[in-house]
């Protein structure tokens, strides 16, 4: 069964009179539990495809079925609720909220779910322990290294137990050692917790961790 099913998706950006066709009838099927790396030069449409799969951008045309829902037809609050339940997102620059501790950052997605504060805290602690940061609960992002920040971001992405994890250049801002730790963590989430992972990367070494690699160039996908 496919966890991500992209069918004939077109994404066109319009700037004044100019039209930029970033994705041109792209079709892609990612099975449940796969670890996919999306590679390609800058401007090839990798992040755009990731954003479409994550429901944070809308296709110009085509269908997108992700985690069992056709998200091309969802709008506003419906799409927000779907994202909250089905998608975990890891950014290149971690994007943690600087005034919240690691624990509070991880708790954020759970604020959208009916849950007691105690249960919320317990689940956030579990997620942080899973990424090896059980001792850093009260630390603020500025008190953590880049690799640790990214691991907090991963904990935040998995805390609501989504089916699909999307990672946009997760190692792009990290040193080699930290990058290895983050990649190992993603591999583990894929292997042990059967998370479907779609990772955009420029780094061939990072892409080697994936079970499937796609190359995207000028909106056209190839293996």
């Amino acid at each position, binding site marked *: 069964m496919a966890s991500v099913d992209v069918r004939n998706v077109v994404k066109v950006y319009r700037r004044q009179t100019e039209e930029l066709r970033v994705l041109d009838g792209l079709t892609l099927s990612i099975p449940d539990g796969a670890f996919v790396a999306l590679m390609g030069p800058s401007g090839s449409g990798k992040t755009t495809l990731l954003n479409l799969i994550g429901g944070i*951008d809308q296709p110009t045309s085509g269908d997108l079925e992700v985690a069992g829902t056709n998200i091309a037809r969802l709008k506003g*609050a419906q799409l927000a*609720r779907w994202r909250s339940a089905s998608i975990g997102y890891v950014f290149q620059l971690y994007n943690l909220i600087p005034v919240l501790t690691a624990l509070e950052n991880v708790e954020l997605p759970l604020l959208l779910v009916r849950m007691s504060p105690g249960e919320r805290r317990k689940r956030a602690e579990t997620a942080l322990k899973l990424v090896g940061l059980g001792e850093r609960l009260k630390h603020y992002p500025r008190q953590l290294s880049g690799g640790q920040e990214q691991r907090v971001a991963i904990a935040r992405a998995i805390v609501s137990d989504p089916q699909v994890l999307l990672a946009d250049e997760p190692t792009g801002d990290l040193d080699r050692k930290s990058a290895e730790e983050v990649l190992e963590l993603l591999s583990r989430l894929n292997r042990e917790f059967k998370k479907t992972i779609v990772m955009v990367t420029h780094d061939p070494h990072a892409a080697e961790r994936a079970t499937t690699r796609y190359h995207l160039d000028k909106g056209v996908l190839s293996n």
Partner: protein
Amino acid sequence: MLKLVIVNLFRNPLRTFLTMASVTVALFLFCALGGILDTLQESIKVGSESRLVTRNKISLVQWIPMAYRQRIEAVPGVKRVAIQNWFGAQDPADTKGFFAQFAVDDPWYGVYGKDYELVDATPSSAPADIPEGADPRLASYFQEQTACVVGQKLMEKKGWKLGQTINLAGTIYPGTWPFTIRAVYHAKKKSFGDETMFFHYKYLNEKGMGGFGAVGTYVLELNDPSQASAITHAVDSQFENAAPATLTETEQAFQAGFVSMYGNIPFVLRVIGLAIVFSILLIAANTMMTSIRERTSEFGVLKTLGFTDGAVFRMVVIEAAVITLGGGLLGSLGARALVTGASVPGGFFPPMSIYWGTVLTGIAIAVVIGAVSGLVPAVQASRLRIVDALRRVE
């Protein structure tokens, strides 16, 4: 959600403090200015429905003859008539510390008997005629022509003692005027005021007018307040063709007329108050916009995590409301606590009042400032497309 709002409020504590302080100061000023209007309003309340005031029809500063008194007293329905005359002297030891002084006759203490109470008085050595309704402890005052009765607050302010002789310098009635303080009063009605001095009209008439008998105003006590309109007409019609003619009105109308001499000042105060509020609205809105712009990417992250546009909108509006409502509460309640009871220079008015209505208006304005200043950034934040928000950082 509320926790996020609180955390964001403390993200830049100095900015939050300064914005809140600016709202506090603005609402303090707004309520203090409103307090002046309230005090003017309060001064009208000094009037009683059972009392009328007769004055010169041309102007309050023109006199009317003593000879009118008997004719006014003869009007059916008039219980008794008292004299009240503005004196306007200065304390040479404190020329800037102006206070009101009135020369009044003995019945005046009976007419206003329910508006004040004596807190101290020099014991009398001999019995005296006490007007109906006046405090018997005023006996020593009634027996001494240069005696005076002073408000409790004025005593404290000037540091005067009971029995002390004070010398005032006359302005309308020149010369040095010695007075001996024989009683101290406390106003039962706030609007009566605690900072006025009363003394014998007889003393003024003999020393200041050479026995001419000019009177500033007559205060008419009525048997039946419902007859006020007919009595007003009866009094004034007696002097319609005399020189001078009189104008009789209820005490409240008299006070209101006194207040109206301030012309457009209440309007100017309202305009100043609103201008302050408007400028603070712009400052608060600008601060909120800056604060929200700095967090654009964070709103993108929150929305990616599943926060709806509505949740983001509410978060920003609540944040703005907390800042302005906090400032509004501090400013409005602070003004009431600090300004209420303060003396108004000149002695014409009772102590400063700030009505709860003015305080609530201030708080309501703070809420509106919060809503309006938060509205634009809240709409911007809620409409923000996630991809645009994230792009601003990456």
